[in-house]
């Protein structure tokens, strides 16, 4: 047992190849041995968590879709009225915040995938070289991922504050008339938030790539070096192709992060002009003064459709691969 517990979880997460058919037989063997009480226990063990998850996550997601086609004041179910596509029509044509929000979510993704992701990969490659103090460096780069986004927001506000912030103090822009308002200026604030988001994303990507690099066969690299390839050629022709599974995960994680982006912006300026995001529009619609349930749900449906377009193909591919293994 002690041997088992020291097994690294990473190794165990990959099911050993070629066990599918004996597994199946064993499972059928298991089922034959069950008593009535066992079956009842099993039903509870599988049923209760599923009911909780489905009720709070999937039923509400479906309710979002249903409510998006209605208006409702939230008081009594008989006030729910079917309005067809009205909410969407208004959202697409009449909401000055909607298209900027979509645009900002897209920018969020593009920036994350173009700046911190390659940066994280680069750091992972360097730290994978068996250098001294690798753990110390890793800890430094990974620290922002551990700290909550709310705290991150406050910490970066101290950097961006026009009067007292680090940047303006250093470049001398903290005197009246010279202010650079990093958080208030709608041309600047999205980029300011994105720097903070990238600060965090880099460490996350670094850890994912470090795990991925462990699966690259060192012999391949050595062979490539012996053939006279330089570091860049080895990376491009040997290392990067073997990182394909990691790249898929990174892509999905980054898209999801871009769709989920909320905390930082909410702490910075509650999604005021310049930093509108879909998630912020949904939330402001709930906690704001004029809560419009159907309308808020319509925004959520837009978010849901985009998310599922990414999640479903990814999961199907993942599970299919697993089944084959």
């Amino acid at each position, binding site marked *: 047992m002690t041997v*088992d517990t020291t097994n690294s*979880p990473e190794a165990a*997460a990959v099911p*050993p190849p070629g066990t599918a058919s*004996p597994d199946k037989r064993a*499972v059928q063997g*298991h089922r034959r041995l*069950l008593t009535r*009480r066992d079956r009842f*226990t*099993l039903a509870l063990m*599988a049923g209760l*968590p599923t009911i*909780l*998850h489905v009720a*709070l*996550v*999937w039923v*509400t*997601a479906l*309710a*979002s879709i249903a409510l998006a086609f209605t208006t409702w004041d939230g008081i009594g179910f008989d006030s729910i009225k079917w309005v067809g596509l009205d909410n969407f029509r208004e959202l697409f044509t009449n909401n000055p915040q909607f298209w900027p929000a979509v645009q900002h979510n897209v920018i969020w993704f593009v920036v994350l995938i173009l700046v911190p992701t390659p940066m994280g990969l680069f750091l992972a490659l360097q730290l994978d*070289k068996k250098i*001294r*103090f690798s753990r110390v460096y890793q*800890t*430094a780069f990974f620290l922002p991922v*551990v*700290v*909550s986004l*709310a*705290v991150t927001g*406050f*910490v*970066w506000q*101290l*950097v961006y504050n026009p009067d*007292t912030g*680090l940047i303006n103090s250093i470049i001398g822009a903290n005197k009246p008339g010279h202010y650079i308002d990093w958080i208030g200026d709608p041309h600047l604030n999205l980029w300011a938030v994105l720097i*903070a988001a990238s600060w965090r994303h*880099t460490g996350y990507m670094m850890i994912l790539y470090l795990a*991925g690099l462990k699966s690259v066969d060192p012999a391949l690299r050595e062979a490539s070096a012996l053939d006279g390839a330089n570091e860049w050629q080895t990376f491009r022709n040997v290392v990067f192709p073997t990182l394909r599974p*990691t790249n898929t*995960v990174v892509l999905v*994680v980054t898209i999801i992060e871009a769709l*989920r982006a909320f905390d930082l912006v*909410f702490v910075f300026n509650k999604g005021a002009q310049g930093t509108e995001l879909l*998630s912020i529009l*949904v*939330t402001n619609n*709930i*906690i704001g003064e004029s809560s419009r*349930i159907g309308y808020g*749900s319509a925004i*959520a449906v837009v978010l849901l459709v985009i*998310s599922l377009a990414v999640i479903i193909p*990814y*999961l199907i591919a993942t*599970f299919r691969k697993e*089944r084959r293994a």
Partner: protein
Amino acid sequence: MSATLGNGRRTPLRPARILLHTFLVVTALAWLAPLLWALFAALRPYAETSEKGYVSWPDKLSLDNFTNAFQQSDMLHYFGNTLIIAVPAVLLTLFLSSCVAFYVSRFDFRVNLFLLLVFTAGNLLPQQVIITPLYRLYLLVDLPGITVSGKLYDSALGLVLIHVAFQSGFCAFVLSNYMRSLPHELTEAALVDGASVWRLYWQIVLPLCKPAMAALATLLSIWIYNDFFWAIVLISTGENMPITSALNNLSGQYFTDPNLVAAGALLTAIPTLIVYFVLQRQFVSGLTLGANKG
């Protein structure tokens, strides 16, 4: 670890290595700069920084801002709120998701994939997709006498439930992969000997899952501690908020100058930092464990 062992074999420091270390040190310091800047501001008295500016040589460094932030805003109360939410949420999530994982990995392959798909996909959804109906649902559910507010809304119970529902997707996925790697003969033999399913789960499978459970527990504790969104929307009374979400209100009410804000924010980060430094290995392995799959 290998520093002492590999000394003899290590090639002498080449210029490339020195360059690499210089690059890494500078980048690492740049990465820590925002946090160090917050620490620097938090250690200085407000009077001094307002007179000399924030970029200046400190005359006096003290922990006064930390004690003031902690006492004035009654932070202990909010840490308590977090504890009431996070501890049951982590335990329940691990328990329920290990039950599902046990079932799908040992007994039923037909629903296995479908169930895992539902759980994992649910976990990947942005929270805002479900928040509007969830908020209404929490307002509709009356629980007189069970929660202080009499509803799921504005109660610790409501937050625990949504955390459990949301996070169990990820955990069930990771644990079922882990359990599938345990040999089947183990449980088969116990079943033949007449052990009940519950004993199989509780006394044989679960103890073998300790490493995965430890990794997930670390990860969940930090995630739930760091949650901001659920509490902002589902808790209306400022008093009932867990610490991370309370920070937003406190910063306007009690943390009146940037030095106090810095101290308050750093105090909030301390528990996560402690968990991270003590259990770094678990945290990182938990993260990559899940991310390698979904």
